[in-house]
């Protein structure tokens, strides 16, 4: 088991969830396809938003790869929904009632789903699963242009990264505009195609400022507090996609452009980085490798030099942290990697 440690804390690689697939199969056999973002339900389930394929293949319409998958952290895949509902799904969030909100950065709107519905693969009901939809394209306050990251705040209002308008907007759950902050630029409080965001226990907002290679921390009303990821502190970020905060206030950023998760202390000091450690296959992966009469599994064992490369993150996107401070990271290999944080750790040197 791989362990990273620094500043009296440790992060232990735990396990991997899922595989790249459009299938869903109840049990432990599901997965995702180019996951764009993650969210946690109030009862601790993980929702995975799949960006999917961009072209039809011989047997499937590409639209059904774009979907939301629901799994437990121990890889009990519950099912998928919202197939054929999106063009470019980008961000996902869950409100207090458990409803799921998804942004579509091509259609410039937010769709709302009942997560209890399961759509069996390869079925879909095009544009017929969402229970609400709001948002129109534009630049005026309340209008959207390429919405990506989503996060509910303590009031259960929805923060939306309005990426191509280079700002963050706050809405009620039914889409009424509350406030907007940010504009294009590289200065404090300005953004360049921001992607994901999160909110900490105090209500402060962290935005992955993708085009500026940094994370900005903002007060609940949008005032700039601090910036992470500058070259000077050695924690340089390369096109960060998403950000999460654990119960100690440590900040985790998915470095989409340099294949790592960068960890900072609340004051912005860099602590460590996770690089991906999927040294064992997920259950879904084992299933897919074994089902072809075991041939694929034999081949896998034969090319063990590949493993070191495969276990690394490949363009990590979404990141969430559960109540037990387990860090869950999606990457574009079509899987999630889970790390457990140990709050006090002294390495055994001998």
């Amino acid at each position, binding site marked *: 088991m791989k362990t990273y440690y620094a500043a009296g804390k440790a992060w232990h690689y735990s396990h991997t969830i899922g*595989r*790249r*697939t459009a299938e869903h199969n109840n049990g432990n056999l599901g*997965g995702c396809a*180019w996951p*764009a973002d993650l969210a946690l339900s109030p009862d601790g389930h993980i929702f995975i938003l799949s*960006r999917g*394929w*961009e*072209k*039809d*293949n011989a047997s499937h319409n*590409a639209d059904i790869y774009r979907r939301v998958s629901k799994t437990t952290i121990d890889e009990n895949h519950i099912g998928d929904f919202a197939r054929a509902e999106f*063009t*470019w799904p980008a961000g996902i969030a869950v409100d207090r009632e458990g409803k799921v909100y998804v942004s579509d*950065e*091509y259609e410039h709107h937010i769709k709302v789903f009942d997560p209890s519905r399961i759509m069996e693969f390869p079925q879909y009901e095009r544009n017929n699963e969402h229970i609400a939809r709001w948002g129109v394209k534009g630049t005026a306050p309340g209008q959207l242009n390429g919405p990506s990251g989503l996060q509910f705040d303590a009031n259960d209002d929805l923060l939306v990264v309005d990426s191509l308008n280079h700002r963050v907007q706050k809405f009620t759950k039914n889409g009424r505009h509350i406030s907007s902050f940010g504009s294009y630029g590289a200065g404090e409080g300005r953004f360049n*195609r921001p*992607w994901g965001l999160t909110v900490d226990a105090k209500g402060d907002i962290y935005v992955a400022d*993708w085009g500026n290679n940094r994370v900005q921390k903002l007060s609940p009303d949008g005032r700039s507090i601090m910036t992470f990821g500058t070259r000077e502190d050695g924690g340089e970020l390369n*096109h960060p996609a998403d950000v999460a905060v654990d119960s100690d206030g440590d900040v985790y950023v998915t470095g*989409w*452009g340099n294949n790592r998760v960068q960890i900072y202390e609340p004051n912005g000091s860099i602590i460590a980085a996770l690089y991906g450690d999927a040294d064992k*296959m*997920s259950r*879904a*992966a084992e299933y*897919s*490798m074994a089902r072809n009469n075991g041939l*694929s599994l034999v*081949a*896998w064992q034969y*090319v063990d*030099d*590949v493993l070191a*490369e*495969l276990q690394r993150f*490949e*363009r990590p*996107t979404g990141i969430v942290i559960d109540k037990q401070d387990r860090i869950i990271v999606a990457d*574009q*290999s*079509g*899987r999630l990697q889970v790390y457990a944080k140990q709050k006090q750790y002294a390495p055994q040197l001998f």
Partner: protein
Amino acid sequence: MTIKTRTDIALVAHLMRRAGFGATRAELEQLAEKPYEDIVEDLLHPERRPEVDEHLLFRYHPTTASYGDGGHAQTHWLYRMVMTQRPLEEKIALFWHYVFATGNAKVENGPAMGRQIEGFRKHGLGNYRDLLVRLAQDPAMIYWLDNNHNHKRAPNENWGRELLELFAMGAGNYTEKDVYECARAFTGWNIIARIGVPWGTYPWKFVYKPEDHDFTQKTFLGHTGEFNGEDIIDIVVRQPATSQFIARHLYNFFVADEPQVPAWPIEPPRDPEAVRFIRETFVDSGYEMKPVLRAIFNSDFFKQAMYEKVKSPVDLVVGTLRLTGDMNGPDPRWGEMPRDMSPMGQNVMDPPSVEGWHTGREWINSGAQLLRVNFTSYRFADTSLPGVQDMISRVASTAGETMTAEVLVGRCLELAGPVKAAGATRAELVGHVRNEGPVSWAPDDYDRSARRVAELLALIGASREFQMG
């Protein structure tokens, strides 16, 4: 003092079609401020211009980041062709893809295909000998031509044969014994096939297995020794047949359409002097590509070869997208673009065989022509596209309040290429405009006239002359 001279727009457009995929009027006018030779030098030094912003591509089209499957690798390349400010970098990659045709239909590994094209892009303007060595070690090529089955005790001749016949010398310039000896020299040049399931497809790696290499003596093209693969390539590159073969390929791709490759042993080049000049420059430069391309682009035979090629589907599609500004960034339609181009007769990264595509007039048949016309006309007729809007405003800005049909047609032909259309085509275009009445650019008439310009551009896009580049 050096006097800088401007360059004729039509000549710049010709150069940009051949060394790239065409250019907009604004780009042509900017380039034309320079002497012709300076434009050529800029093309030959792509590092002077910024790279394509792949971060943007990969964020919005994540399947292209690791090339996904073959289709995503195709999307990646087509996106680069449309977006690049370094057009010769992509055009030389396309040239080598024509010559060293490799197909994902067999390889079935998008990352391996994508990396092969990356190699052509990165090294395609370099040395031909070095490129052949890289090609012999390219995993997609090794798998495509079965060199992974070429063993010391059981040679497989596929790679060796195609190296001589299609990648270097041309048919009729070697014996069957040479093919066999060539194959033996490449035994042990193999790949590690990496399994991607369940987390996607991963690129393969070249591996040299000395235990599977035949170290014994070989006699190849009159030379005898314990040759390995690189020794064979050194001998092949020095053959006069090789320089003639590559020179003819360069003429066919960059200058004017030649007969199809299988006919070359029996049909002479259409311009033997030009091919001789290219061949000699190639040899004199030590098989370096930049000096050869510089000599070609600056030659009189190149400058006189305007409209002497039928546009390939790639030239037509990429050129139309660049000219009209359609899909000038991330767009959901990118995923289907390779599939749309395939019925036109060119599915990049999936040529019909190792012989590559038949070019020139063979691009055109009744089915393909319909698709070509639809593709260009649909975009030229779309007044919402920035490139079309630019052409309309340029027509309007040079007009008085009214404009004759002849002037309008002349201006649109100029902006769409320039396109060389005379005789019946021009007369039909003029007749069409006349039938619709006078063209007025008075404010109340502007929108209607703009639509008429777009319609005329669409007709030009459908013309026989627009198919030539």
